[in-house]
Protein backbone atom coordinates (compact mmCIF):
# COMPACT_ATOMS: atom_id res chain seq x y z
CA UNK A 1 0.00 0.00 0.00
CA UNK A 2 1.41 3.44 -0.91
CA UNK A 3 2.21 5.85 1.88
CA UNK A 4 0.17 8.86 2.84
CA UNK A 5 -0.26 11.28 -0.04
CA UNK A 6 1.40 9.00 -2.64
CA UNK A 7 -0.47 8.53 -5.91
CA UNK A 8 -1.12 4.75 -6.06
CA UNK A 9 0.05 2.83 -9.12
CA UNK A 10 -3.44 1.99 -10.39
CA UNK A 11 -4.32 5.70 -10.46
CA UNK A 12 -1.39 6.53 -12.72
CA UNK A 13 -2.35 3.87 -15.28
CA UNK A 14 -5.17 3.97 -17.83
CA UNK A 15 -8.33 2.29 -16.58
CA UNK A 16 -9.49 -0.64 -18.66
CA UNK A 17 -13.24 -0.96 -18.45
CA UNK A 18 -15.87 -2.76 -20.47
CA UNK A 19 -19.42 -2.21 -19.15
CA UNK A 20 -21.18 -5.29 -17.85
CA UNK A 21 -24.56 -5.84 -19.43
CA UNK A 22 -27.16 -5.13 -16.78
CA UNK A 23 -30.58 -6.39 -17.79
CA UNK A 24 -32.34 -4.13 -15.35
CA UNK A 25 -29.93 -1.26 -16.16
CA UNK A 26 -30.77 -0.02 -12.72
CA UNK A 27 -29.37 3.43 -12.28
CA UNK A 28 -29.01 4.54 -15.86
CA UNK A 29 -32.66 3.83 -16.66
CA UNK A 30 -34.73 3.91 -13.49
CA UNK A 31 -32.87 6.84 -11.91
CA UNK A 32 -33.20 8.83 -15.09
CA UNK A 33 -36.90 7.95 -15.24
CA UNK A 34 -37.36 9.09 -11.65
CA UNK A 35 -35.42 12.23 -12.51
CA UNK A 36 -37.68 12.89 -15.46
CA UNK A 37 -40.77 12.46 -13.25
CA UNK A 38 -39.27 14.80 -10.66
CA UNK A 39 -38.71 17.39 -13.36
CA UNK A 40 -42.40 17.16 -14.19
CA UNK A 41 -43.42 17.44 -10.55
CA UNK A 42 -41.13 20.38 -9.90
CA UNK A 43 -43.19 23.44 -9.16
CA UNK A 44 -42.49 26.55 -11.13
CA UNK A 45 -43.50 30.05 -10.28
CA UNK A 46 -46.72 30.76 -12.15
CA UNK A 47 -46.91 33.99 -14.13
CA UNK A 48 -50.06 36.05 -14.47
CA UNK A 49 -51.55 35.72 -17.92
CA UNK A 50 -53.40 38.38 -19.83
CA UNK A 51 -56.80 39.23 -18.35
CA UNK A 52 -55.81 37.77 -14.95
CA UNK A 53 -57.70 38.75 -11.81
CA UNK A 54 -55.82 39.37 -8.55
CA UNK A 55 -54.84 36.30 -6.53
CA UNK A 56 -57.61 36.43 -3.86
CA UNK A 57 -60.32 36.96 -6.50
CA UNK A 58 -58.90 34.20 -8.66
CA UNK A 59 -58.85 31.81 -5.69
CA UNK A 60 -62.38 32.68 -4.60
CA UNK A 61 -63.88 32.44 -8.09
CA UNK A 62 -62.06 29.19 -8.91
CA UNK A 63 -63.29 27.66 -5.64
CA UNK A 64 -66.83 28.89 -6.34
CA UNK A 65 -66.77 27.50 -9.89
CA UNK A 66 -65.45 24.13 -8.69
CA UNK A 67 -68.24 23.91 -6.07
CA UNK A 68 -70.92 24.81 -8.63
CA UNK A 69 -69.46 22.30 -11.08
CA UNK A 70 -69.62 19.59 -8.41
CA UNK A 71 -73.19 20.44 -7.42
CA UNK A 72 -74.52 20.73 -10.97
CA UNK A 73 -76.93 18.07 -12.18
CA UNK A 74 -77.46 19.80 -15.53
CA UNK A 75 -74.65 18.93 -17.97
CA UNK A 76 -74.95 22.40 -19.54
CA UNK A 77 -73.27 23.95 -16.45
CA UNK A 78 -70.24 21.67 -16.87
CA UNK A 79 -70.12 22.32 -20.63
CA UNK A 80 -70.18 26.11 -20.12
CA UNK A 81 -67.30 25.81 -17.64
CA UNK A 82 -65.47 23.46 -20.00
CA UNK A 83 -65.72 26.04 -22.78
CA UNK A 84 -64.35 28.69 -20.41
CA UNK A 85 -61.47 26.42 -19.27
CA UNK A 86 -60.51 25.64 -22.88
CA UNK A 87 -60.56 29.32 -23.90
CA UNK A 88 -58.37 30.24 -20.91
CA UNK A 89 -56.03 27.32 -21.68
CA UNK A 90 -55.62 28.61 -25.24
CA UNK A 91 -54.13 31.82 -23.79
CA UNK A 92 -51.44 29.95 -21.81
CA UNK A 93 -47.81 29.83 -23.00
CA UNK A 94 -46.79 26.63 -24.79
CA UNK A 95 -45.02 24.95 -21.84
CA UNK A 96 -47.76 25.87 -19.37
CA UNK A 97 -50.34 24.53 -21.85
CA UNK A 98 -48.47 21.22 -22.04
CA UNK A 99 -48.50 20.87 -18.23
CA UNK A 100 -52.15 21.90 -18.10
CA UNK A 101 -53.12 19.32 -20.73
CA UNK A 102 -51.11 16.52 -19.09
CA UNK A 103 -52.55 17.03 -15.59
CA UNK A 104 -56.17 17.77 -16.61
CA UNK A 105 -56.31 14.87 -19.09
CA UNK A 106 -54.81 12.46 -16.51
CA UNK A 107 -57.42 13.48 -13.92
CA UNK A 108 -60.26 13.09 -16.43
CA UNK A 109 -59.03 9.66 -17.53
CA UNK A 110 -58.62 8.49 -13.94
CA UNK A 111 -62.18 9.62 -13.11
CA UNK A 112 -63.53 7.91 -16.24
CA UNK A 113 -61.64 4.74 -15.32
CA UNK A 114 -63.13 4.76 -11.82
CA UNK A 115 -66.60 5.18 -13.35
CA UNK A 116 -66.04 2.36 -15.84
CA UNK A 117 -68.16 -0.17 -13.86
CA UNK A 118 -71.09 2.28 -14.11
CA UNK A 119 -70.66 2.38 -17.88
CA UNK A 120 -70.66 -1.41 -18.02
CA UNK A 121 -74.09 -1.57 -16.39
CA UNK A 122 -75.54 0.95 -18.83
CA UNK A 123 -74.82 4.21 -16.98
CA UNK A 124 -72.33 5.48 -19.58
CA UNK A 125 -73.72 9.04 -19.33
CA UNK A 126 -72.68 9.15 -15.67
CA UNK A 127 -69.17 7.96 -16.51
CA UNK A 128 -68.82 10.67 -19.18
CA UNK A 129 -70.25 13.31 -16.83
CA UNK A 130 -67.79 12.32 -14.08
CA UNK A 131 -64.85 12.50 -16.50
CA UNK A 132 -65.95 15.93 -17.75
CA UNK A 133 -66.42 17.24 -14.21
CA UNK A 134 -62.95 16.03 -13.23
CA UNK A 135 -61.50 17.66 -16.36
CA UNK A 136 -63.20 20.98 -15.59
CA UNK A 137 -62.35 21.06 -11.87
CA UNK A 138 -58.71 20.07 -12.44
CA UNK A 139 -58.49 22.54 -15.33
CA UNK A 140 -59.76 25.38 -13.15
CA UNK A 141 -57.29 24.55 -10.37
CA UNK A 142 -54.40 24.19 -12.84
CA UNK A 143 -55.16 27.53 -14.45
CA UNK A 144 -55.02 29.24 -11.06
CA UNK A 145 -51.73 27.48 -10.24
CA UNK A 146 -50.16 28.22 -13.63
CA UNK A 147 -51.10 31.89 -13.72
CA UNK A 148 -50.45 32.86 -10.09
CA UNK A 149 -47.00 33.24 -8.51
CA UNK A 150 -46.75 31.04 -5.37
CA UNK A 151 -46.06 34.03 -3.12
CA UNK A 152 -49.23 35.79 -4.34
CA UNK A 153 -51.22 32.61 -3.92
CA UNK A 154 -50.36 32.19 -0.23
CA UNK A 155 -50.61 35.97 0.28
CA UNK A 156 -54.09 35.78 -1.22
CA UNK A 157 -55.10 33.19 1.39
CA UNK A 158 -54.74 35.90 4.03
CA UNK A 159 -57.75 37.62 2.53
CA UNK A 160 -59.86 34.61 3.51
CA UNK A 161 -58.70 34.67 7.15
CA UNK A 162 -56.76 31.42 6.71
CA UNK A 163 -54.77 30.91 9.96
CA UNK A 164 -51.15 32.09 9.97
CA UNK A 165 -49.93 28.62 10.84
CA UNK A 166 -51.54 27.14 7.73
CA UNK A 167 -50.03 29.86 5.50
CA UNK A 168 -46.58 29.33 7.08
CA UNK A 169 -46.87 25.61 6.47
CA UNK A 170 -47.91 26.10 2.83
CA UNK A 171 -45.12 28.64 2.19
CA UNK A 172 -42.45 26.40 3.71
CA UNK A 173 -43.84 23.29 2.01
CA UNK A 174 -43.74 25.01 -1.39
CA UNK A 175 -40.16 26.15 -0.79
CA UNK A 176 -39.02 22.74 0.44
CA UNK A 177 -40.72 20.81 -2.36
CA UNK A 178 -38.75 22.88 -4.86
CA UNK A 179 -35.49 22.58 -2.90
CA UNK A 180 -35.88 18.86 -2.29
CA UNK A 181 -36.72 18.36 -5.96
CA UNK A 182 -33.38 19.98 -6.82
CA UNK A 183 -31.56 17.88 -4.18
CA UNK A 184 -33.17 14.69 -5.49
CA UNK A 185 -32.11 15.54 -9.04
CA UNK A 186 -28.51 16.17 -7.95
CA UNK A 187 -28.24 12.99 -5.87
CA UNK A 188 -29.81 10.85 -8.59
CA UNK A 189 -27.42 12.42 -11.11
CA UNK A 190 -24.47 11.53 -8.85
CA UNK A 191 -25.82 7.97 -8.56
CA UNK A 192 -26.21 7.76 -12.33
CA UNK A 193 -22.65 8.98 -12.95
CA UNK A 194 -21.18 6.24 -10.77
CA UNK A 195 -23.63 3.51 -11.81
CA UNK A 196 -21.55 2.13 -14.63
CA UNK A 197 -22.20 -1.55 -14.05
CA UNK A 198 -24.39 -4.04 -12.29
CA UNK A 199 -25.72 -3.06 -8.88
CA UNK A 200 -26.00 -6.16 -6.72
CA UNK A 201 -28.00 -4.41 -4.04
CA UNK A 202 -30.40 -2.12 -5.85
CA UNK A 203 -32.65 -1.46 -2.86
CA UNK A 204 -29.67 -0.34 -0.75
CA UNK A 205 -28.62 2.25 -3.36
CA UNK A 206 -32.13 3.58 -3.72
CA UNK A 207 -32.53 3.54 0.06
CA UNK A 208 -29.32 5.55 0.31
CA UNK A 209 -30.72 8.22 -1.99
CA UNK A 210 -33.97 8.36 -0.01
CA UNK A 211 -32.02 8.49 3.27
CA UNK A 212 -29.85 11.34 1.96
CA UNK A 213 -32.96 13.28 1.03
CA UNK A 214 -34.54 12.64 4.43
CA UNK A 215 -31.45 13.91 6.25
CA UNK A 216 -31.26 16.98 4.02
CA UNK A 217 -34.98 17.68 4.42
CA UNK A 218 -34.69 17.44 8.18
CA UNK A 219 -31.64 19.73 8.22
CA UNK A 220 -33.27 22.24 5.88
CA UNK A 221 -36.39 22.37 8.07
CA UNK A 222 -34.31 22.86 11.24
CA UNK A 223 -32.18 25.55 9.54
CA UNK A 224 -35.25 27.41 8.29
CA UNK A 225 -36.85 27.32 11.73
CA UNK A 226 -33.62 28.61 13.34
CA UNK A 227 -33.35 31.35 10.70
CA UNK A 228 -36.95 32.37 11.41
CA UNK A 229 -36.26 32.50 15.14
CA UNK A 230 -33.15 34.62 14.53
CA UNK A 231 -35.37 37.09 12.72
CA UNK A 232 -37.78 37.31 15.62
CA UNK A 233 -40.29 34.57 14.70
CA UNK A 234 -42.45 33.70 17.71
CA UNK A 235 -45.35 31.92 16.08
CA UNK A 236 -46.95 34.82 14.17
CA UNK A 237 -46.46 34.82 10.44
CA UNK A 238 -47.78 38.10 9.12
CA UNK A 239 -48.14 38.33 5.40
CA UNK A 240 -49.59 41.37 3.75
CA UNK A 241 -53.16 40.58 2.75
CA UNK A 242 -53.36 41.27 -0.98
CA UNK A 243 -56.92 42.43 -1.38
CA UNK A 244 -56.58 45.43 -3.65
CA UNK A 245 -59.36 44.95 -6.18
CA UNK A 246 -58.95 46.46 -9.62
CA UNK A 247 -61.10 46.91 -12.73
CA UNK A 248 -60.17 43.43 -14.00
CA UNK A 249 -61.41 41.93 -10.73
CA UNK A 250 -64.77 43.70 -11.10
CA UNK A 251 -65.20 42.25 -14.60
CA UNK A 252 -64.38 38.74 -13.35
CA UNK A 253 -66.74 39.04 -10.36
CA UNK A 254 -69.56 40.26 -12.65
CA UNK A 255 -68.93 37.36 -15.04
CA UNK A 256 -69.04 34.88 -12.16
CA UNK A 257 -72.29 36.43 -10.88
CA UNK A 258 -73.77 35.94 -14.35
CA UNK A 259 -72.60 32.31 -14.37
CA UNK A 260 -74.04 31.71 -10.88
CA UNK A 261 -77.38 33.11 -12.04
CA UNK A 262 -77.31 30.79 -15.04
CA UNK A 263 -76.51 27.88 -12.71
CA UNK A 264 -79.52 28.68 -10.49
CA UNK A 265 -81.75 28.94 -13.57
CA UNK A 266 -80.49 25.68 -15.16
CA UNK A 267 -80.89 23.83 -11.87
CA UNK A 268 -84.47 25.12 -11.58
CA UNK A 269 -83.70 26.89 -8.31
CA UNK A 270 -85.00 30.23 -9.62
Amino acid at each position, binding site marked *: *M*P*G*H*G*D*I*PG*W*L*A*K*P*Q*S*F*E*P*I*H*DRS*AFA*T*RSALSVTAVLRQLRLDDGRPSRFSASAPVKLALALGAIILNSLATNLMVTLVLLAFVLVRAALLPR*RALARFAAVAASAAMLAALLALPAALIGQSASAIRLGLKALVSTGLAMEVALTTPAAELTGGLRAFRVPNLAITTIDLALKNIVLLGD*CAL*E*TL*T*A*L*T*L*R*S*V*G*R*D*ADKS*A*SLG*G*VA*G*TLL*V*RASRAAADTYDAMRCRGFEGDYDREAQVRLGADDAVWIAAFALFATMFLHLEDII
Partner: protein
Amino acid sequence: MAHTHPAEALHTPHEGAVSETPLISLDDYCFAYDDTPVLRHVALEVRAGECVVLMGDNGSGKSTLLKAICGLVFPQRGAYRFDGSEVSERSMRDASFAKRLHARVGFIFQDSDAQLFCPSVADEIAFGPRQMGLSEAEVSRRVDDTLALLDIEALRDRAPWTLSGGEKKRVAIACVLSMNPDAYCFDEPLAGLDSKTQTWLTGFLKRLKAAGKTLVIATHDQSLADELADWFCYMGEFHGYEDRPHVHING
Protein backbone atom coordinates in the same frame (compact mmCIF):
# COMPACT_ATOMS: atom_id res chain seq x y z
CA MET B 1 -21.51 5.11 -34.22
CA ALA B 2 -18.24 3.38 -33.46
CA HIS B 3 -17.54 2.65 -29.81
CA THR B 4 -13.86 2.47 -29.06
CA HIS B 5 -12.60 0.68 -26.01
CA PRO B 6 -11.12 3.22 -23.58
CA ALA B 7 -7.88 1.33 -23.15
CA GLU B 8 -7.40 1.18 -26.91
CA ALA B 9 -8.58 4.69 -27.67
CA LEU B 10 -6.86 6.75 -25.04
CA HIS B 11 -3.21 6.88 -24.33
CA THR B 12 -3.27 8.10 -20.76
CA PRO B 13 -0.47 10.59 -20.37
CA HIS B 14 2.03 10.23 -17.58
CA GLU B 15 3.84 12.73 -15.39
CA GLY B 16 2.16 15.78 -16.81
CA ALA B 17 2.69 14.93 -20.47
CA VAL B 18 0.03 16.47 -22.71
CA SER B 19 -1.43 14.58 -25.64
CA GLU B 20 -1.67 16.26 -29.04
CA THR B 21 -5.18 15.03 -29.82
CA PRO B 22 -8.13 16.62 -28.02
CA LEU B 23 -9.78 14.48 -25.36
CA ILE B 24 -12.66 16.92 -25.02
CA SER B 25 -13.88 18.81 -28.05
CA LEU B 26 -16.89 21.10 -28.30
CA ASP B 27 -17.74 22.62 -31.65
CA ASP B 28 -20.34 25.40 -32.04
CA TYR B 29 -22.06 23.95 -28.94
CA CYS B 30 -25.36 25.64 -28.05
CA PHE B 31 -27.55 24.80 -25.09
CA ALA B 32 -30.57 26.52 -23.53
CA TYR B 33 -32.59 25.74 -20.39
CA ASP B 34 -36.16 26.10 -21.63
CA ASP B 35 -35.97 29.37 -23.55
CA THR B 36 -32.91 30.76 -21.76
CA PRO B 37 -29.66 30.32 -23.73
CA VAL B 38 -26.81 29.25 -21.44
CA LEU B 39 -24.07 28.06 -23.82
CA ARG B 40 -23.79 29.97 -27.08
CA HIS B 41 -21.65 28.64 -29.96
CA VAL B 42 -18.99 27.30 -27.59
CA ALA B 43 -15.82 26.04 -29.27
CA LEU B 44 -13.37 24.37 -26.90
CA GLU B 45 -10.67 21.74 -27.12
CA VAL B 46 -8.96 20.18 -24.12
CA ARG B 47 -6.12 17.75 -24.68
CA ALA B 48 -5.45 14.76 -22.41
CA GLY B 49 -3.29 15.79 -19.47
CA GLU B 50 -4.20 19.47 -19.60
CA CYS B 51 -5.64 21.51 -16.77
CA VAL B 52 -8.16 24.09 -17.91
CA VAL B 53 -9.71 26.55 -15.51
CA LEU B 54 -13.14 27.97 -16.35
CA MET B 55 -13.68 31.43 -14.94
CA GLY B 56 -16.72 33.62 -15.25
CA ASP B 57 -19.39 35.49 -13.37
CA ASN B 58 -22.28 33.69 -11.68
CA GLY B 59 -24.68 32.44 -14.34
CA SER B 60 -22.07 32.56 -17.10
CA GLY B 61 -22.55 28.84 -17.83
CA LYS B 62 -19.53 27.25 -16.08
CA SER B 63 -21.51 24.50 -14.32
CA THR B 64 -23.56 23.80 -17.44
CA LEU B 65 -20.36 23.42 -19.46
CA LEU B 66 -19.12 20.85 -16.92
CA LYS B 67 -22.45 19.03 -17.18
CA ALA B 68 -22.11 19.03 -20.96
CA ILE B 69 -18.65 17.46 -20.68
CA CYS B 70 -20.09 14.75 -18.41
CA GLY B 71 -22.91 14.04 -20.86
CA LEU B 72 -25.63 15.30 -18.54
CA VAL B 73 -26.96 17.91 -20.97
CA PHE B 74 -26.92 17.72 -24.75
CA PRO B 75 -26.39 20.30 -27.47
CA GLN B 76 -29.38 21.75 -29.26
CA ARG B 77 -26.92 22.76 -31.96
CA GLY B 78 -23.28 21.88 -32.56
CA ALA B 79 -21.44 18.83 -31.28
CA TYR B 80 -19.44 17.45 -28.37
CA ARG B 81 -16.86 14.72 -28.83
CA PHE B 82 -15.05 12.85 -26.08
CA ASP B 83 -11.94 11.09 -27.32
CA GLY B 84 -13.32 11.26 -30.85
CA SER B 85 -16.75 9.80 -30.08
CA GLU B 86 -19.76 12.08 -30.40
CA VAL B 87 -21.68 12.48 -27.14
CA SER B 88 -25.28 13.28 -27.96
CA GLU B 89 -28.72 12.51 -26.61
CA ARG B 90 -28.90 9.70 -29.13
CA SER B 91 -25.52 8.15 -28.37
CA MET B 92 -26.18 8.35 -24.61
CA ARG B 93 -29.32 6.22 -25.07
CA ASP B 94 -26.88 3.37 -25.64
CA ALA B 95 -26.35 2.20 -22.03
CA SER B 96 -22.84 0.83 -22.73
CA PHE B 97 -21.73 4.08 -24.31
CA ALA B 98 -23.15 6.13 -21.42
CA LYS B 99 -21.48 3.91 -18.81
CA ARG B 100 -18.15 4.11 -20.64
CA LEU B 101 -18.32 7.89 -20.70
CA HIS B 102 -19.31 8.10 -17.03
CA ALA B 103 -16.44 5.78 -16.11
CA ARG B 104 -13.98 8.03 -17.99
CA VAL B 105 -15.20 11.44 -16.84
CA GLY B 106 -15.56 12.05 -13.10
CA PHE B 107 -17.70 14.90 -11.81
CA ILE B 108 -17.11 16.40 -8.37
CA PHE B 109 -20.18 18.45 -7.47
CA GLN B 110 -20.01 21.80 -5.73
CA ASP B 111 -22.39 20.47 -3.08
CA SER B 112 -20.75 17.30 -1.71
CA ASP B 113 -23.96 16.37 0.12
CA ALA B 114 -25.61 15.64 -3.21
CA GLN B 115 -22.88 13.22 -4.16
CA LEU B 116 -22.92 10.97 -1.10
CA PHE B 117 -25.64 8.39 -0.60
CA CYS B 118 -24.06 5.25 0.87
CA PRO B 119 -24.23 4.23 4.54
CA SER B 120 -20.48 4.52 5.21
CA VAL B 121 -17.44 6.24 3.74
CA ALA B 122 -15.88 2.90 2.78
CA ASP B 123 -19.08 1.83 0.96
CA GLU B 124 -19.18 5.21 -0.77
CA ILE B 125 -15.64 4.78 -2.15
CA ALA B 126 -16.26 1.13 -3.07
CA PHE B 127 -19.50 1.86 -4.95
CA GLY B 128 -17.88 2.89 -8.26
CA PRO B 129 -15.22 0.15 -8.44
CA ARG B 130 -17.86 -2.49 -7.59
CA GLN B 131 -20.06 -1.08 -10.38
CA MET B 132 -17.12 -1.49 -12.74
CA GLY B 133 -16.97 -5.19 -11.89
CA LEU B 134 -13.55 -5.10 -10.23
CA SER B 135 -12.66 -8.00 -7.93
CA GLU B 136 -13.34 -7.55 -4.22
CA ALA B 137 -9.57 -7.65 -3.59
CA GLU B 138 -9.05 -4.79 -6.05
CA VAL B 139 -12.02 -2.87 -4.61
CA SER B 140 -10.58 -3.26 -1.13
CA ARG B 141 -7.13 -2.14 -2.32
CA ARG B 142 -8.60 0.95 -3.96
CA VAL B 143 -10.59 1.84 -0.88
CA ASP B 144 -7.47 1.56 1.32
CA ASP B 145 -5.28 3.50 -1.13
CA THR B 146 -7.85 6.26 -1.63
CA LEU B 147 -8.47 6.64 2.10
CA ALA B 148 -4.69 6.97 2.62
CA LEU B 149 -4.23 9.32 -0.34
CA LEU B 150 -6.88 11.70 0.97
CA ASP B 151 -5.88 11.19 4.61
CA ILE B 152 -9.35 10.09 5.69
CA GLU B 153 -8.65 6.62 7.07
CA ALA B 154 -10.24 7.59 10.38
CA LEU B 155 -13.52 8.23 8.56
CA ARG B 156 -13.74 4.75 7.00
CA ASP B 157 -16.79 3.56 8.95
CA ARG B 158 -18.46 6.92 9.51
CA ALA B 159 -21.76 7.79 7.82
CA PRO B 160 -21.11 10.49 5.18
CA TRP B 161 -23.91 12.72 6.45
CA THR B 162 -22.24 13.03 9.87
CA LEU B 163 -19.04 14.55 8.41
CA SER B 164 -17.92 18.17 8.30
CA GLY B 165 -17.91 20.12 5.01
CA GLY B 166 -14.17 19.59 4.42
CA GLU B 167 -14.41 15.87 5.20
CA LYS B 168 -17.37 15.49 2.85
CA LYS B 169 -15.38 17.16 0.07
CA ARG B 170 -12.52 14.69 0.57
CA VAL B 171 -14.94 11.74 0.52
CA ALA B 172 -16.68 13.12 -2.60
CA ILE B 173 -13.31 13.31 -4.37
CA ALA B 174 -12.34 9.85 -3.08
CA CYS B 175 -15.46 8.21 -4.46
CA VAL B 176 -14.70 9.55 -7.96
CA LEU B 177 -10.95 8.92 -7.68
CA SER B 178 -11.48 5.21 -6.90
CA MET B 179 -13.00 4.77 -10.39
CA ASN B 180 -9.78 6.16 -11.91
CA PRO B 181 -11.38 8.28 -14.65
CA ASP B 182 -9.27 9.96 -17.33
CA ALA B 183 -10.81 13.40 -16.85
CA TYR B 184 -12.11 15.18 -13.76
CA CYS B 185 -14.63 18.01 -13.72
CA PHE B 186 -14.54 20.05 -10.52
CA ASP B 187 -17.38 22.49 -9.88
CA GLU B 188 -16.17 25.21 -7.47
CA PRO B 189 -13.88 22.82 -5.54
CA LEU B 190 -12.86 25.35 -2.89
CA ALA B 191 -16.34 26.76 -2.16
CA GLY B 192 -17.28 26.59 1.51
CA LEU B 193 -13.95 25.11 2.69
CA ASP B 194 -11.68 26.53 5.40
CA SER B 195 -8.25 27.84 4.41
CA LYS B 196 -6.43 24.72 5.67
CA THR B 197 -8.61 22.43 3.54
CA GLN B 198 -8.31 24.82 0.59
CA THR B 199 -4.51 24.63 0.80
CA TRP B 200 -4.63 20.84 1.03
CA LEU B 201 -7.03 20.55 -1.91
CA THR B 202 -4.95 22.87 -4.10
CA GLY B 203 -1.89 20.71 -3.41
CA PHE B 204 -3.85 17.55 -4.11
CA LEU B 205 -5.11 18.87 -7.46
CA LYS B 206 -1.52 19.70 -8.42
CA ARG B 207 -0.49 16.11 -7.70
CA LEU B 208 -3.44 14.81 -9.70
CA LYS B 209 -2.38 17.01 -12.61
CA ALA B 210 1.22 15.83 -12.29
CA ALA B 211 -0.08 12.23 -12.50
CA GLY B 212 -1.30 13.04 -16.01
CA LYS B 213 -5.01 13.46 -15.31
CA THR B 214 -7.09 15.88 -17.35
CA LEU B 215 -8.67 18.51 -15.15
CA VAL B 216 -11.47 20.94 -15.99
CA ILE B 217 -12.09 23.21 -13.04
CA ALA B 218 -14.80 25.84 -12.66
CA THR B 219 -13.80 28.31 -9.98
CA HIS B 220 -13.96 31.90 -8.80
CA ASP B 221 -10.70 31.47 -6.90
CA GLN B 222 -7.89 33.38 -8.64
CA SER B 223 -5.08 31.78 -6.60
CA LEU B 224 -6.25 28.24 -7.38
CA ALA B 225 -6.53 29.15 -11.05
CA ASP B 226 -3.09 30.75 -11.03
CA GLU B 227 -1.45 27.69 -9.47
CA LEU B 228 -3.10 25.05 -11.63
CA ALA B 229 -4.16 26.34 -15.02
CA ASP B 230 -2.29 25.41 -18.17
CA TRP B 231 -4.67 27.84 -19.80
CA PHE B 232 -7.85 29.68 -18.95
CA CYS B 233 -11.30 29.70 -20.39
CA TYR B 234 -13.04 32.99 -19.67
CA MET B 235 -16.80 32.82 -19.97
CA GLY B 236 -19.28 35.57 -20.76
CA GLU B 237 -18.07 39.08 -20.02
CA PHE B 238 -15.34 37.92 -17.63
CA HIS B 239 -11.78 39.11 -18.21
CA GLY B 240 -8.80 37.79 -16.26
CA TYR B 241 -5.15 37.25 -17.01
CA GLU B 242 -4.86 38.53 -20.53
CA ASP B 243 -1.13 37.71 -20.55
CA ARG B 244 -1.76 33.99 -19.79
CA PRO B 245 -2.92 31.50 -22.43
CA HIS B 246 -6.67 31.84 -22.62
CA VAL B 247 -9.79 31.67 -24.75
CA HIS B 248 -12.99 33.68 -24.45
CA ILE B 249 -16.22 31.76 -24.95
CA ASN B 250 -19.93 32.29 -24.49
CA GLY B 251 -19.69 36.03 -24.94
